[in-house]
């Protein structure tokens, strides 16, 4: 059951007898080469997190520019066209380059650990997902350097984004950039689904998986089926703009609603893609700091699955004023109200988990309770949109802006911060400071409410979203100024987080890593020492119950009272196994990913670049296939673990 101990000598023979590979694989080692060629899910998770925080800084600066422009009437910080570009890129960046990759960061790092696996099912494919995501994100942001950033809003309604109304390459950057990051999400979704379905530790049935793992699984299915729909929409837009197709050309009789339908059939499941990972994190943090198991585990899981299904039946509530007709409006009003039920179940279950628990308000717990409360506000304003007559008044006002920031910032982003504080010792071996952490939490929470709370009022007063200036005398001045002050308070909160990261790393320098189980936690990842060793588990864990780690630490005495039966040191593994076979690093994921931006630039500027990018992609795929399955010199327990490589995998 554990890793076998094949000696390198036998491996050398095996490799000589089987000259499968044309290219040698990199050896690993350390330094930047190690990061570029890594296939380790933990390093890829850290890369995802670092890249997402980098884009978070960019998207945050864009947000500050927006708020500076809106701080006073007749703002002059940005011109109208520049304002359009900045709010479009702010939205695109935050949705596709911050929240989604942050979820991918947590999923990559934690999901294999939580199911007791040594890696994902396809380690190289996992690396490829990250590099393609990074290539797509950088590609999108280079549009600034070409002086032509997308300006059609994050949902890019055609025909407004067609070549007639959006000349220049901005919307091409949008269509191509999202196409590229879409490939990354799709590959990652396929990989993680196979991982969860096939690689769970012995005894871990689906209903012994942690809620976080469950929510990530639901999200991957949503991505699996939603990404191809936006792929279609983006292709149609691209063909319209570049090859003169007639998908969004009303003069030729095209349907101006086609884009809206395709986009929102993707876009509404996407909303749940953004929020469910955070729900999963909160479902791990709250039980730990309440010292109670999650209340109604099955209900939590099934409500997540229900959201996953119902998320496909509500898209037209984004189109209540687009003229879809009274029957569609009625039907989508109903389905939208229904989807509040499973979400409400989750909120109530979190509260019931806390009820009667021994609460410890660490920073992670504060952020988690922040999610529960702030998401509830956003959820309630969401229910008001479901009422079509009310929505008719709210559409395209700041009320909508307030709503989706309460769910995406208050729900998703605060949840990721809870995750940072909770799993930081697991990833980096030291805790984030609690003192700065609390400053981080309170400034962010207050700043967030100062920024987005007043937008409810502004919206109901009739202030349109996306206008670049407003005149004095409409009563917009006060709340806009408050919102701008709030935005800079959030920036201060993020600064506290950055300082916390730096100071805690500096404080931990030279000290031994934090001991096992700093939080008295519950799930499988805490069997590993901190930080997680490269091979994850010394030996695979036989799982008998949900919260296996907790059940190994606690039992019941003869009176049925819960007593501690083992210390964390006794339960945790030592992380000193040396005979575990690990997949070798590979050059090809990063090389393959580099082809995609070339294709993107090629379509806009010069088709020869396209050809170069295409050749790079195809050659990398073949090189990938003919790469030796493993480093012949590496430790090699070939039968030992399931981190199987996609040998001759037919898909790129």
């Amino acid at each position, binding site marked *: 059951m554990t890793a076998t101990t094949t000696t390198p000598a036998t491996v050398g023979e095996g490799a000589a007898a089987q000259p499968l590979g044309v290219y040698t694989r990199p050896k690993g080692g350390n330094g930047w080469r190690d990061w570029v060629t890594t296939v380790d899910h933990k390093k890829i998770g850290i890369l995802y997190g670092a890249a997402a925080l980098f884009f978070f800084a960019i998207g945050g600066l864009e947000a500050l520019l927006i708020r500076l422009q809106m701080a006073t009437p007749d703002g002059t910080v940005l011109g109208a066209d520049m304002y359009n570009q900045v709010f479009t890129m702010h939205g695109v960046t935050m949705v596709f380059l911050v929240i989604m990759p942050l979820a991918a960061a947590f999923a990559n790092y934690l999901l294999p650990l939580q199911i007791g696996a040594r890696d994902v099912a396809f380690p190289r494919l996992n690396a490829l997902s990250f590099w393609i995501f990074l290539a797509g994100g950088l590609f999108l942001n280079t549009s600034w350097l070409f002086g032509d950033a997308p300006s059609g809003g994050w949902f890019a309604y055609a025909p407004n984004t067609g070549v007639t109304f959006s000349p220049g390459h901005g919307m091409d950057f949008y269509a191509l950039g999202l196409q590229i990051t879409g490939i990354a999400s799709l590959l990652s979704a396929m990989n993680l689904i196979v991982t969860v379905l096939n690689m769970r530790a012995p005894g871990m049935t689906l209903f012994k998986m942690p809620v976080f793992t469950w929510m990530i699984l639901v999200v991957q299915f949503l991505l699996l089926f939603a990404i191809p729909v936006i792929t279609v929409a983006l292709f149609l837009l691209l*063909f319209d703009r570049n090859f003169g197709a007639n998908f969004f050309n009303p003069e030729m009789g*095209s349907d101006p609603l086609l884009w809206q339908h395709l986009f929102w059939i993707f876009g509404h499941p996407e909303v749940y893609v953004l929020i469910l990972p955070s729900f999963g994190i909160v479902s791990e943090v709250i039980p730990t700091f309440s010292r109670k198991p999650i209340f109604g585990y099955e209900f939590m899981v099934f409500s997540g699955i229900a959201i996953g299904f119902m998320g496909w039946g509500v898209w037209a509530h984004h189109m209540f004023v687009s003229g879809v007709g009274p029957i569609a409006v009625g039907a989508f009003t109903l389905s939208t109200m229904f989807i509040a039920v499973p979400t409400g179940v989750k909120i109530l279950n979190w509260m019931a988990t806390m009820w009667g628990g021994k609460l410890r308000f660490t920073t992670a717990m504060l952020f988690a309770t922040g999610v529960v409360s702030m998401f509830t506000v956003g959820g309630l304003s969401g229910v008001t949109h479901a009422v079509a007559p009310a929505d008719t008044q709210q559409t395209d006002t700041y009320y909508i802006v307030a709503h989706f920031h309460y769910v995406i910032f208050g729900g998703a982003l605060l949840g990721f911060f809870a995750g940072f504080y909770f799993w930081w010792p697991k990833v980096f071996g030291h805790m984030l400071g609690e003192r700065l952490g609390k400053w981080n939490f309170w400034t962010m929470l207050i700043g967030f409410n100062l920024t987005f709370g007043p937008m409810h009022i502004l919206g109901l007063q009739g202030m349109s979203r996306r206008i670049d200036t407003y005149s004095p005398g409409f009563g917009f001045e006060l709340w806009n100024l408050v919102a701008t002050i709030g935005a800079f308070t959030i920036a201060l909160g993020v600064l506290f987080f950055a300082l916390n990261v730096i100071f805690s790393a500096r404080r931990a320098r030279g000290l031994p890593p934090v001991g096992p189980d700093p939080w008295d936690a519950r799930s499988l990842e805490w069997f590993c020492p901190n930080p997680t060793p490269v091979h994850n588990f010394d030996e695979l864990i036989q799982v008998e119950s949900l919260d296996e780690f907790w059940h190994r630490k606690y039992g019941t005495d003869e009176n049925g009272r819960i007593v501690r039966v083992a210390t964390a040191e006794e339960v945790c593994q030592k992380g000193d196994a040396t005979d575990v076979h690990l997949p070798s690093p590979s050059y090809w994921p990063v090389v393959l990913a580099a082809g995609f931006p070339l294709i993107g630039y090629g379509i806009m500027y010069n088709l020869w670049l396209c050809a170069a990018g295409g050749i790079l992609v195809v050659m990398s795929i073949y090189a990938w296939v003919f790469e030796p399955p493993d480093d012949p010199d590496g430790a090699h327990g070939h039968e030992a673990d399931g981190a199987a490589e996609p040998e001759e*995998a*037919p898909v790129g």
Partner: protein
Amino acid sequence: MADVMTTEAPAAAHQSEGAGTGISNNKLLMWVFLGSECLLFGGLISTYLIYRSRFHTGPAPGDIFDIPFTSVSSFVLLMSSLTMVLALSALNRGDIRNNRLWLLTTALLGSLFIGGQVYEFTTFVREGLGYTTSPFSSAFFTLTGFHGIHVSVGIVMLMSLFISSLRGSLRQEHSETVEIVGLYWHFVDIVWIFIFTVIYLVPSPTS
């Protein structure tokens, strides 16, 4: 498959035997990918259905389709699914020679279908139905074009298998690789059954 499905061995040497589906990772990856592909073609087919009667001033679908011709090329494509099965079953028996023969035949039948598509497209363009003529024409060429690209990718995969077989590296123990490529190939065929029905068999509007 029954022996694979009952993996209750307590001391499983292989991690994937811990608690899995019993389907290998590679095959499950292909199944999951094909699930995603359903929505890709679903989006394209829906677009076509919305635009099939919007032919502006260009040729109408009912006037331009040559149903007997396309039926023949559809038959060719469907037959390639049969030869794909024969290729897999030959390799399962360890019959490398017949495996190569049927792999090549499948690729050739696929190429014949693509040839038919190229002929059809050029005929349509000559008859005045260009890519930019109308919403109908854009939707038609995009949907059938995406399918054609999928068939072409399949042909590349089949030829890659064929060449690795010539090099002696496609042996009986690799039959699952052929099976996985076969899954893709059958999927592309099944999608064509839908596309053929929706585009050609359902009575089309005429001008």
